[in-house]
């Protein structure tokens, strides 16, 4: 005797198809909403600041630039501000935001831990230490006139190098016989982060007043130095990250079951891990180099995405990129508007949004298994 009414396979397949379709629609909706939000914020960002320009006017300038409007508009002061000052800044912000958010999502996937973040495992601290070294010791270490005049030109390379070295060190410490232990990696990351932090502190201690000010401002993060040149240095590093995402999504999904299980499923686990680590080092190095230390983007954005559409990396990774771009562009608008005509370091704004959010996550820890 059957107690439960059993569905026929066809009926259950149909029900499952409806379920899958519903999820897909939710995903499409989320993509559309986030892209819309991001574009809106971008338009606002081009107009916002000490020299305010109406969004309609911004749109006219953009159309003119694309060849759909009077060309003489491009000679105006507003066009200069929009195209040469705010546009590179906007794009840099979007790239850095996307890079940081994807890095966060990648690390959380890699460590199978919702709280992992480039800041947590010392990657940002390593990049920061190298950058601080360039600021404070740059003119002592590199005695050429070139470096003495341009410590800030060395800074991006320094930060980038630092991120890469700390990630590699982390990877080497945690890898035994071709297998990477996540727990060792987290612990080693915390230790490396502390070490880098103390060395950065030491550098701050021996720095002179000018260097200390540079160091402070840089460690708070800012998109202020954005230019087309800087953008052209960062874009080739962050953009490949966006294109590598589809290569990693399946592997990271399988990794959620555990490394052995992912191997059983036919995923090249070591290759996925190495690629993810390299991409994180590149993206974090590039963003720290170009915009200083901007915290919490990598932890806030992927969480929000997971809460709204679930943890499937095929959607999580691209949506994190869009969401990260939107968050940083939005935070930059706030940074430019609250203390007009000056501007706040953007790291202050993101931490101001991110830290309470993080605390809220911890407070609802009872449900953290769902995150």
């Amino acid at each position, binding site marked *: 005797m059957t107690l439960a009414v059993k569905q026929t396979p066809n009926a259950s397949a149909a029900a*499952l198809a409806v379920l899958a379709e519903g999820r897909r629609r939710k995903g499409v909706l989320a993509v559309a909403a986030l892209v819309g939000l991001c574009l809106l914020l971008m338009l606002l960002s081009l107009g916002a600041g000490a020299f305010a320009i109406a969004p309609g006017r911004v749109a006219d300038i953009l159309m003119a630039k694309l060849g759909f409007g009077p060309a003489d508009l491009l000679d105006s002061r507003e066009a200069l501000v929009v195209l040469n000052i705010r546009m590179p800044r906007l794009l840099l912000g979007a790239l850095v935001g996307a890079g940081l958010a994807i890095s966060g999502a990648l690390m959380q996937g890699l460590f199978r831990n919702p709280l992992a973040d480039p800041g947590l495992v010392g990657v940002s601290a390593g990049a920061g230490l190298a950058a601080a070294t360039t600021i404070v010791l740059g003119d002592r270490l590199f005695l050429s006139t070139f470096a003495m005049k341009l410590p800030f030109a060395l800074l991006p390379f320094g930060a980038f190098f630092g991120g890469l070295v700390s990630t590699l060190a982390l990877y080497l410490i945690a890898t035994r016989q071709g297998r990477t232990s996540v727990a060792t990696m987290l612990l080693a990351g915390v230790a490396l982060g502390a070490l880098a932090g103390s060395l950065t502190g030491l550098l701050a201690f021996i720095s002179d007043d000018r260097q200390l000010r540079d160091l402070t401002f840089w460690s708070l993060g800012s998109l202020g130095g954005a230019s087309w040149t800087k953008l052209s240095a960062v874009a080739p590093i962050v953009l490949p990250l966006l294109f590598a995402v589809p290569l990693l999504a399946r592997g990271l*999904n399988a990794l959620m079951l555990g490394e*052995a299980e992912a191997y059983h499923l036919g*995923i090249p686990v070591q290759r996925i891990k190495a690629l993810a680590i390299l991409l994180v080092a590149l993206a974090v190095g590039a963003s720290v180099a170009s915009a200083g230390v901007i915290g919490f983007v990598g932890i806030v954005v992927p969480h929000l995405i997971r809460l709204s559409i*679930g943890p499937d990396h095929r959607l999580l990774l691209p949506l994190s990129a869009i969401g990260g771009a939107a968050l940083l562009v939005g935070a930059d608008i706030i940074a430019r508007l609250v203390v007009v005509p000056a501007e706040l370091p953007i790291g202050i704004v993101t931490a101001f949004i991110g830290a309470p959010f993080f605390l809220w996550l911890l407070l609802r820890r009872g449900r953290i*298994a769902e995150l």
Partner: protein
Amino acid sequence: MAILESIGLSFSVRGSTLVRDASLALEEGAMTIVVGPNGAGKSTLLKLLTGELAPSQGAVRMDGATLPQIPAWELACRRAVMVQNQRLAFPFSVYEVARLGLEGVGRAQSRARKGEIIAQALETAGVVGLAGRQYQTLSGGEQQRVQFARALCQLEAGRSVAQRQILFLDEPIASLDLCHQLSLLDAARSIAAQGAAVLVVLHDLNLAVTYADRLVVMHEGAIVAQGEPSAILDDNLLRGVFRVSLSFSRLPPAGQPFLLPQQHLTPVQPGGVVPLRAVSG
């Protein structure tokens, strides 16, 4: 013909030998069940056979090729594994967990075909009704069935690439109720009936005897007996290996062995020597 063969497999870590000189063959269409007390090396043996661990000595051959030579993707088409670990890092739905079985081997399948495979696997594992639920909110037994569905997905998707397949199940019924214990083992047996080799690690001796075409008894890392259950099981072997006195009888009409544990004997400390003769049948 054997799909998988292990020859003189040993595995040692930090001076202690977890598996010693294990040789066995997984035959096409046969269900092999591994039994043994805790720490006998059953799971380690399974890890060696699936390629998760590399043996210290000996080799595992699948259709002639030794394991490390087979690329991970191809290996995944040839065998699916359900391990004891049921944890999952993020809140995937049951449907998505089953679909994870296709992340590696299902790349070539169309979306519609994937949907079919998943629906069929969820049906077989009896978890269709849970498809929309969050995996982490399920009971241990339900999670185990979902993991079984995932392994079934992988096996089904892999079949388009490799016909001679193996299904490994490490204590798949540990948290299941009686009904689902039998339905999972029935499903495993029907997979064997379709031509795959199935290897199951079990604790329940009566179920092992009922379902096994071949029984493998492990003790302190070594295979002490293997063969057809009714041919190899006897009072002495069970006393020596499991440290229990059993009422051992045979059920009519086929004379299937039936075991009723009665009293435990003093457990042997690890490393203690129990005289056992190797049995083969």
